[in-house]
């Protein structure tokens, strides 16, 4: 038996470096005692040390028993834990307390933050407005990007002169920093210095101000966002188009299948998966839209999105725990939406 090469698991109470069961037991007991008996500042580090000790025991155990697969992913899991999972759990905990980052006091209040975020007569309407605006931006920006990106991909799938250079040009917006693009669009839309008002005014003779109404402001933001991210959709779709075997088209041509039918029966099935992926990525990103709004309208003209609203609550007004509660509700929504989405996408591809 190959198992003879590995050491037998240690007994529960034998003090060895690889005894992870004992490590968990000791870690739990010490943590609970520390949390109950010591001031929070010190207890925090003791609990942290216990977590590190348990992790170390797991690693030694894995090494002695030659679980190399586990060892190889351990650094990634450690980073994930420190950078993602721990802050997530920490903020989940915070959302049940009354805590402001610029004040020293902290008090347990149960679900009150969630209740405030959802029902308070002053806080809740602002949250709902921001959420509705976000939903609007998700629908508009993602639709615009999918259509423009898809058409661009259809164009670039063909060979034509200067294609390579035009492709680089079309991809440029995606590579620019959002701040640079945002500032560029600010000037583009500016009624005094901007080219847009200049052109419209010289045609109509009136005084055109794009950003002075909600429709205009939303159009401005959606246009800027589509300008930046349509190339991303194009890249993904283009990858799909390139992967379609040529002989399928040749066979279809021999059978005199119409171009329209060729598209739906050959091309589309190949790119559907990538289209879904692009849709998923862009929807999640659009849900987090804040940067362009900050740069273009600062949330004015009723363009406040939930992300920007959250930045203001949590980072600027220092209402940390209320912000945590709101962001958990947001996270919950994104997870539900994403899963729904994946479910539908999978069911369709199985049906096909």
């Amino acid at each position, binding site marked *: 038996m190959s198992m003879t090469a590995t050491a037998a698991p240690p007994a529960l109470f034998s003090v060895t470096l690889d005894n992870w069961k004992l490590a968990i037991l000791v870690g739990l007991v010490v943590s609970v005692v520390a949390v109950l008996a010591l001031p929070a500042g010190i207890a925090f580090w003791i609990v942290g040390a216990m977590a590190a000790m348990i992790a170390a025991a797991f690693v030694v155990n894995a090494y002695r028993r030659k679980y190399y697969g586990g060892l190889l992913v351990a650094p990634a899991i450690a980073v994930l834990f420190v950078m993602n999972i721990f802050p997530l759990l920490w903020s989940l905990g915070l959302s049940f307390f009354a805590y402001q980052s*610029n*004040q020293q006091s902290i008090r347990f209040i149960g679900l009150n933050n969630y209740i405030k975020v959802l029902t308070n007569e*002053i806080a809740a309407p602002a949250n709902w407005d921001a959420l509705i605006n976000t939903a609007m931006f998700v629908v508009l920006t993602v639709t615009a990007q999918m259509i423009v990106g898809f058409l661009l991909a259809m164009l670039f799938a063909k060979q034509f002169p200067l294609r390579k250079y035009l492709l680089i040009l079309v991809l440029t917006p995606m590579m620019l920093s959002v701040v640079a693009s945002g500032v560029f669009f600010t000037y583009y839309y500016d009624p005094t210095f901007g080219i847009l008002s200049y052109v419209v005014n010289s045609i109509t003779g009136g005084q055109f101000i794009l950003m002075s109404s909600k429709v205009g402001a939303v159009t401005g933001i959606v246009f800027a966002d589509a300008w930046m991210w349509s190339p991303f959709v194009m890249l993904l779709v283009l990858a799909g188009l390139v992967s379609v075997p040529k002989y399928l088209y040749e066979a279809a041509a021999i059978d005199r299948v119409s171009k329209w039918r060729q598209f739906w029966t050959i091309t589309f099935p190949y790119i559907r998966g990538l289209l879904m992926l692009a849709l998923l990525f862009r929807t999640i990103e659009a849900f987090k839209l804040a940067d362009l709004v900050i740069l273009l309208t*600062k949330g*004015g003209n009723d363009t406040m999105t939930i992300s920007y609203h959250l930045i203001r609550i949590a*980072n600027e007004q*220092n209402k940390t725990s209320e912000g945590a509660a709101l962001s958990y509700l947001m996270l919950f929504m994104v997870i539900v939406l994403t899963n729904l989405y994946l479910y539908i996408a999978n069911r369709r591809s199985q049906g096909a």
Partner: protein
Amino acid sequence: MTVMTKMKGFAAAAGLAATLLTGGAAQALAEEVTLTMAVPDWPPTRIMKKFFDEQYKPKSGNTVKLDVDFIPWGDFYTRVNASLTSGEQKYNFVVSDSQWLGAFVEGGYFRKVNDLLDADPEFKAVMESMHPNPRDAYSTYPHKTPNFYGFPQFPDVLVNFARSDILCHEEEQKNFQAKYNKKLPCTGEELDAMTWDDFRNVGEFFRRKKGEMLAGKPADDDFYGIAYQAGKVYDFSSMQINGFIWQMGGNVWDETQAPKGQAEGVVNSPEAVAAFEKYLSMLEFMPPVAKTGTMDIFKTDELFREGKVAMNINWIGLGEASLDPKTSKVSDKLVFGQMPGTMGADGKMVRWSNIGGQPFVLTTWTTDAQIKEAVEFVKWWLSPDIQHQFAASGGQSAIKSVYEDPKYVTYRPWNRAWAPQLDWQKDVWHVPQFYELLTQQQDQFDLAITGKQDAKTTLDNIAKFQQNLLTEAGLIQ
């Protein structure tokens, strides 16, 4: 070369070497102290850093380094707030906007300095030699109590930036007189005497389309008479609107009256509504960007420097760029006056305005050695000689003996408006809730500025929000 001169040369060289050596030895004994500072990135702080590097010699003999983080205004609050609340304890000194005091004193970040002042009579005398309005606004928390937290770094007020080439043009003067039966203000004194009604008339009068005659020439672009801040971000409309409200007999929620003072009925009083309506009524004469809610202090400054408006109300702190021909198309055509006022019932001008400018504040984790050097540095900064130099390079001073010196008004063209405006400065909320109060108010003002909501509804909403928030915080009973 004679032997004698050789000898002299040798002696001189030896002497030099000796001083270098002993100097070096003294330096080796001295400590190196670094003061880390967060400041907004604009001329008043750039000048301070330049003076420090060029001139500052610490009395203690220590090597003092000033490590300055220049942060753009738009992000300044967010960045400083993040640094302080995260507990990284990076900064010893913060150039804080006056309204931040409450939030950061209550958070335990800003250090009370009464002990430092009491220990050093000379230092205390400097603080007492300041005009009480800026001192109270920049240093005291709770507001107007003798609990000191800061020292003025750069005091500031709103003034009227104007174009003499347009305003003093004969043709325009004649037409304005004919239309309004009043002289078009052209000199500094005439600007000082302006009321908001005169300001409105200038706005109405100078609205010109591209190609229409402007000061004897066809305008090369659309031209507007007036501008002031009407932006959504930070405090870029409140600072102007507060002046209107105070001048016309209204008030904001008064922190010095807490917990008796109310928000409901005060913030939305008929006087305040009328004042806000007056503020809104002038926006139609301003560049069209006013309707988008992004006409902040930087935008009006840019419009003015690009030659698109005749008059702009703005902070002195932004003034240097308009005087510099490299950044301003109007650098040689400027005249400055006080911000317009409102004529009182007794025939005297009422000039209330919201104070600008910032104090330096020390943080609580600053060590004793750093505090000693910081105090020396602040004393040096507030010494008459440096304050004069600062004013001569575009700064301002709140120290009476400095700004009352006849030389003072000659430093910069706007300095003539400085001393008379100081008596009329007030400030808003130094309470910990200030940022919530400010963002909600700015959002509401923005709705009115962009024409979505009338003045009454706006102030009603603000009053309701403030009443609720401040009652919860125990500041209204």
